[in-house]
């Protein structure tokens, strides 16, 4: 039935009621069968320290190796946030480069840390403290390390990328900071704030990668993160982009691929890796840190799934394995040829007749304009399936909802963000359009590459 066995064979629908299983007390390691076990990684699989470190390393290497995407000497950007997972990723790469066996990692990594303090509304002192902690955390890894503040997304210049070890203080562009702060304060829900932050971070990572001549980005998203992201993305209207957002490889920008090499490792395994190796981490608060427990749809989903996972320990891997089987169908009539200006994902708004998307459009039009909407807009959308007509309507609806700030259409998930923002988000428009056009050019270059004479 299912080809992926190692996590799923322990698929049990009965509650494990963590902690009541006496067979695990003072167990010996399942792998080497000699050392005392230190951590339970999977259901009834207890590992000693050494075997856990090997296990995490093996999962990481196998995931990268299997993909065959990374070539020797290739410049690779490694996105680091200070979290448990990113400390693990940096250490795995650091050790992999020093390996003396033929399995040595051959690519040349460049670390980039995005300081999102401006979006979170942190004070300059708080940001400086985080910056200095990050410097210490990354000091001993021996890799070149760059720092870029999130507010650079307003007007990205190549020199916004700074060598972290040669900087002692932060040079903060107060004007951009206040713009970014306004954009985020303007959004009503924590759900949209978290969603927009992810999109802007990705945008900045791609721009940094292009600047540093990196053709790939590695992120430290674990299997647990991706399972939660899969479910919460469905909830927040990003279902159409799932294979890009939670799969191993995000191809929305053809010249810079985003890879997730920790996808086969759980967050718990990563936490023990950090603990056992004594790695430094930096805690950076999120929007949800100061809010109540279920302040956003993403947090609510996370709390629900993590709670469920406690009772049914195969929850996360089951969700994740399901997500792995999803793929985008570029020929689907639901996707247009162009991409979303905000998130660069394929546009999911060229809906066929009687789709869920049109249903929401019509229902929102009806609740706004009453019966008149059906006679004009609603029927209009349904009867004119030519792309141009749809385009016109959709761009006008985007315009209405975001007060005329975006002229190119955006995807459904991004429309929800724009609908919440009053008008501050137009501050992003110029830089996003520049970025968008660059990605389009890259795509075009690739498409015509075969016809070019060298």
């Amino acid at each position, binding site marked *: 039935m299912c080809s992926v066995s190692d996590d799923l064979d322990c698929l049990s629908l009965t509650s494990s009621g*963590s*902690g009541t*299983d*006496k067979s*695990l*007390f*003072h*167990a010996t390691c399942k792998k080497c069968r000699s050392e005392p*076990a*230190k*951590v*339970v990684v999977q259901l009834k699989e*207890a590992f000693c*320290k050494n075997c856990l470190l090997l296990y995490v390393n093996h999962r990481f290497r196998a995931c990268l190796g299997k993909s065959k995407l990374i070539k020797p000497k290739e410049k690779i950007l490694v996105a680091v946030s200070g*979290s*448990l997972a990113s400390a693990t990723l940096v250490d795995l790469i650091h050790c992999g480069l020093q390996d003396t066996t033929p399995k040595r990692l051959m690519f040349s990594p460049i670390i980039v840390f995005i300081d999102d303090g401006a979006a979170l509304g942190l004070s300059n002192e708080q940001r400086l403290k985080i910056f200095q902690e990050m410097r210490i955390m990354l000091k001993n890894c021996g890799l070149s390390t760059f720092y870029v503040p999130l507010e650079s997304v307003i007007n990205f210049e190549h020199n916004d990328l700074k060598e972290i070890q040669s900087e002692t203080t932060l040079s903060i562009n107060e004007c951009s900071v206040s713009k970014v702060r306004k954009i985020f304060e303007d959004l009503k829900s924590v759900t949209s704030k978290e969603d927009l932050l992810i999109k802007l971070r990705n945008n900045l990572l791609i721009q940094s990668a292009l600047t540093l001549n990196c053709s790939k980005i590695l992120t430290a998203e674990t299997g*647990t*993160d991706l399972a*939660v992201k899969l479910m919460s993305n469905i909830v927040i209207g990003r279902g159409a982009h799932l294979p890009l957002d939670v799969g191993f490889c995000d191809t929305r920008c053809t010249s810079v691929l985003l890879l997730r090499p920790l996808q086969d490792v759980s*967050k*718990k395994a*990563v*936490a*023990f890796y*950090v*603990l*056992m190796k004594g790695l430094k*981490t930096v*805690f950076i*608060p*999120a*929007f*949800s*840190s100061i809010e*109540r*427990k279920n302040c956003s749809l*993403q*947090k609510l989903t*996370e*709390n629900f799934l*993590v*709670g469920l*996972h*406690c009772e049914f320990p195969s929850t996360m891997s089951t969700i994740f394995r399901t997500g792995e089987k999803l793929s985008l169908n570029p020929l689907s009539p639901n996707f247009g040829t162009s991409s979303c200006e905000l998130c660069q994902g394929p546009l999911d708004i060229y809906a066929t007749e009687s789709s869920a998307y049109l249903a929401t459009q019509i229902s929102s039009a009806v609740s706004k304009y009453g019966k008149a909407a059906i006679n004009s807009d609603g029927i209009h959308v349904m009867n004119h399936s030519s792309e141009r007509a749809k385009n016109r309507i959709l761009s006008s609806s985007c315009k209405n909802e975001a007060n005329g700030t975006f002229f190119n259409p955006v995807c459904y998930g991004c429309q929800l963000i724009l609908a919440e923002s009053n008008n501050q988000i137009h501050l992003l428009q110029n830089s996003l359009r520049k970025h968008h056009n660059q990605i389009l050019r890259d795509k075009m270059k690739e498409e015509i590459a075969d016809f070019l004479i060298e």
Partner: protein
Amino acid sequence: MASCTSSIPSGEREVSECSSATGGAGKELKVNIEFMGGAEMMFDNQKKLNVTLPPAECKWTIRSLLAYMKVHCAKGGGLERFFTGDSVTPGILCVINDQDWELLDTLNYELEPNDNIIFISTLHGG
């Protein structure tokens, strides 16, 4: 060793009963607590806590330690982000002397002097 945990449903009641009891071991118990991954936010941003637990008739367990921490160590709001029922919120790991608490009977683990207990939040935003 006598255990007082199974008969008492509420963690908080247990602390009061345990700490008000006299006799027994009659000695203070010192443990070192550490927070990681944002779990420190609920504890005044202190990364490390040295807790001296008052003498108690029955052995201190992780369950009674959590109830004690809820009353004596936690600061400000957002308690539900760390505590759920008589345990920690799912997603917060507990490590006792470098060992996963799932290997040590979780809440029923009986504390020893100078135990090192680490709480790591694996949740987004701590």
